[in-house]
């Protein structure tokens, strides 16, 4: 939303503590390289993911936002990711209506053992944001 053009793509990643944050740790353990554009914020669960925080992230100038949690059924708190799974399509659709390109907002399921997948997810998000920046 900010009009200032940033040099580097800046992606804010909200990762649930139990699966995706641990999965991103696993990415490190496996030494899988991914772009450094993502800045990770640890949250307990995607259920805590207040849509407001995502809107605020875009408002603050994030080029992209990723929210990642446990696969459905694996939530540490049973249901959190199910709630998130509903907030996401709604929020994405609303953001698009406001002109936030869909390539800027992503969600993924990354389990604690899917280190490689996390690296792939980040690559995809960064590539999508880049595509948006370059091709409009």
């Amino acid at each position, binding site marked *: 939303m900010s009009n200032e053009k*940033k*040099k580097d793509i*800046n992606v*804010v990643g909200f990762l649930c*503590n*139990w*699966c995706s*944050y*641990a999965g*991103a*740790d696993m*990415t*490190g*353990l496996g*030494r*899988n*390289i*991914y772009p*450094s554009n993502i*800045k*990770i*914020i*640890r*949250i*307990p*669960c995607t*259920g*805590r*993911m*207040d*849509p*407001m*925080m995502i809107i*605020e*992230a875009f408002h*603050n*100038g*994030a080029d992209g936002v990723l929210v990642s949690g*446990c696969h459905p*059924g*694996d*939530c*540490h*708190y*049973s*249901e*959190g990711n199910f*709630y*998130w799974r509903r*907030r996401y399509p709604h929020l994405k659709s609303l953001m698009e209506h406001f002109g936030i390109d869909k390539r800027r907002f992503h969600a993924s399921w990354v*389990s*604690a*053992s*899917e280190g490689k997948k996390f*690296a792939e997810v980040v690559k995809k998000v960064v590539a999508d944001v880049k595509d948006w920046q370059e091709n409009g």
Partner: protein
Amino acid sequence: MARIGVFVCHCGTNIAGVVDVTRVAKYAETLPGVRISVDYKYMCSDPGQNTIIDAVKKYNLDRIVVAACSPRMHEGTFRKTIERAGLNPYLMEMANIREHVSWVHSDDKELATQKAMKVMEMAVAKVRRSEALSKMFASIEKRALVIGGGIAGIQAALDIAGAGYKVVLVEKEPSIGGRMAQLDKTFPTLDCSACILTPKMVAVSQDPNITLMTYAEVVEVCGYVGQFDVKIKQKAKSVNSKCIGCGVCVTKCPNRKSLSEFNEKLAPRKAIYTPFPQAVPNVPVIDRETCTFFKTGKCKICEKVCPTGAIEYTQQDEIIKEKFGAVVVATGFNIYDHSNYGEYGYGEIKDVISSLQFERLINSSGPTDGHVVRPSDHKEVKNVVFIQCVGSRDESKHRPYCSRVCCMYTAKQAMLLKDHYPETQSYVFYIDIRSAGKNYEEFVQKAQNDYGVVYLRGRVSKIYERGDKLIVKGADTLSGAQVEVEADMVVLANGLEPKANAKELAQLFHMSYDQYGFYNELHPKLAPVETAISGVFVAGCCISPKDIPDTVAQASATAAKVCALFSKEKLEVEPLIANVNQLTCSGCETCYNVCPYSAIEMEDKEVRRGDMRHVAKVLESVCKGCGACVGSCYCKAVDLKGFSDRQVMNQIETATTELSTND
């Protein structure tokens, strides 16, 4: 203004090899509120921690940021450190510059350093809004649940019971004993499996602290460490407690239609049965799927012959609710199903058998009384081919991991065969021999040198029947020759995989598991029997393939963990829970509806003088801090301690701005 100390860890070269840690520390000093910033080789070491404690005192710090590894690794460590320094442990934040920076951005050291600076800055931003939280305590139900009655579960149950705590041991099958009960002898000592296992099984049945529930399954789990509410389904055995285990019913049962699971389907079993003669408890069950009475309504022979009137056809499945303080999960393994292997005949060649079938054949209490005969024609064998790595170490089609025990048990089986039938000849096709362990390599050498087992390094490409022989075609990569062995029987060294329903059980407890269904330890090295769910411990092959000594060691380790937990009067729980600001609550009940733990209660309260309202309230002892309420409250009346909106907003703001220096 906060007085923040930033401590940047090199982690040897793990971080410092990629990230310019001095620059990170220098940058920290420019941030508002940061009074001191230092880097050190190993922050988690004693001198490292003392650096923090000294700095807290010297600079009168009130908040700490440790830029090091993942908080999942050392958050607890550093919280204790600052507690020792006299600070509230929740005034510490970790910046993960190892797992999330140096290890994943090693391709560009400059960018990695910049990111490390930013990640540290975000932690500083967060800690600035951290609040001191007071410890919370919960009561502990000092009873343990052990799931799985194999050697791991038995050992864990005995150890916990031995320390004086009550244990409920739940086993799905009619008897405890598990896989170990199926084995003949064990490597590398060749002592009889049953001889060392059965005394432990009996000890379980006799221990006053252990309640044994066989033919039972865990179906529902609520709660958390110290207070798990578990529902266990006791399947109807159709035999009640009057049974004295005389076995007449089994003998007289005319229905032999089922194949014995215990004997790996090499022999039939009755509709009323105990899996094996030494079963504990020695009480038969009726398999209602096959029982003539349950299918046709006629028969009832078992009821007629029972001397004590123990047969009870009307028994129903029963759900039993129990409360536990801790859980040990030891659900064990299945062997890899070789019907996936076309080259080994898709499991359709009768004389190509699994390793467990071989164990049953060579076991003197097995279906052939210990005679190794071919399942197809019951002829004795002369030439036997053993094939290793069936399902294991094959990334493309099967499982990429090594199952660890197959090299050893193949050598054992070849040796046992030679012991029983000195005229037999064994051939072993292998990829590598993995025999790490006390006396293991010697054991394999002995098989080759003293027992004349021929080891051929190579894969088998095809097995087919020619007459009553099996032709095994393969490569000997050492000589470079194609080999063809005419065998009477082929024994496959099936790899190990988790139980088919391992994932469902994991989901009941919200444990994490890998793509195969093996349970994830909290830390592969430092917390090998703990899981991410506190109070739930794991042991044995449900984590990864392992042999009996390792399994027993892990089982005892879980027992030690459970006992340590139970030794406390009260359990310290993380105070990272939700709280409602009732002044801003509209009473819409959204949080009340979404809370997975029913930790929100609605109350009518005068929130301000003269302002009576319907508002939400958090039940502190029930809340687990997931934040589902926070994410759904549009009035912004609920917040989450430790992950508050102020903290997250600060992190977002910092994450989205450029580094504020350009040095």
